[in-house]
């Protein structure tokens, strides 16, 4: 069951590489920040599922909302000459690490309780 999302990821990469989809180079920075937001959401989702508090509508809306908001923030930053881009990188980066740390802790706890039994 856990492999299906991984296969999905591989499928996405394959599609992206084989299809001739390309974004103008000048929007590349928006895409990178959107990717960071998306990664954060995915790890957040994994964490929520381990905590058994996963809600698919929250997850999906969070994915699109965070991704678009990050790109929008970067865009506004460029227009105003403020590096809001960095704020987004920082915020999502911290959250990403927090989520990964939480996942690790949950996994360790889970394996501990299982061996304890």
């Amino acid at each position, binding site marked *: 069951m856990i492999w299906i999302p991984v296969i999905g990821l*591989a499928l*996405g*990469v394959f599609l992206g590489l084989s299809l001739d989809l390309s974004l103008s180079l000048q929007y*590349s920075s928006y895409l990178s920040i959107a990717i960071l937001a998306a990664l954060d959401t*995915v790890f957040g989702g994994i964490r929520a599922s381990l905590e058994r508090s*996963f809600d698919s509508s929250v997850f999906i809306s969070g994915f699109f909302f965070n991704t678009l908001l990050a790109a929008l923030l970067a865009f506004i930053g460029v227009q105003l000459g403020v590096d809001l881009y960095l704020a987004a990188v920082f915020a999502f980066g911290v959250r990403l690490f927090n989520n990964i740390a939480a996942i690790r802790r949950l996994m360790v706890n889970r394996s501990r309780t299982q061996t304890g039994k």
Partner: protein
Amino acid sequence: MPKKINARVKLTISLTMISVILGLMLSMQYKNTRAAANTQSQVTTTDPKAQYTADQLSRIKEQNKALEGDIEKLRKELYEFEKQATQAGNNVPPEVRDDLTKYKIMAGVLPVKGPGISFTVTDSIKDGQTTNLLITHDSDLRMMVNEMFIGGAEAIAINDQRITTTSGIICIGPIVMINGVKVSPPFEFKAVGQAQTMMATFELRGGVFDLLGDPGGRALSFSKPKMHPSLTLPAYAGDFNGLSE
């Protein structure tokens, strides 16, 4: 229990969906970064305006190249017309026509074909010295060009950049600019002229090539000069500081 299974299915479906999109984004970004790395002039920057300018710069450079090709073609046509005009028996004496050709060769606006020599020079591979001594400098190239002209060259090209009356050989950081075009080592010299005497300049003790190639000194790597019965040098395709022809 069925409720739990339902939740798991939902989780898997949504996670898979998002994963596909994430994968798509990742691969697109990867392709973008690769494309940016492949084209040298294009700089990846987080600033879209800088990116836009870099894109434009590379586009203009390409346009310039195409336009230089046009200039070369038109010059050739002009030359043909001049030839026809003189052959048609206008009162242009043949000496004038020959002079015209001669000066055009000297100016570098005509491609040249004839006997000549070629060799390449590149940075020294010796170590244990300061890099400054080991790399091929613009001044070295100028010295070599002078030496070749003294040694009987009628026309010289370095990496297919013809040396003209207004050619500058200058240093811009790690590379050399000739005729406003960046060239980098190895530098391939082609010279049309008296091949025998040009070959002799390499043997000249204390000459430029002897000094630059001295294993105890600069030790620049020279390839063995080769004589060619027929060598073609391209014409210079840029403009002459605003001078019209």
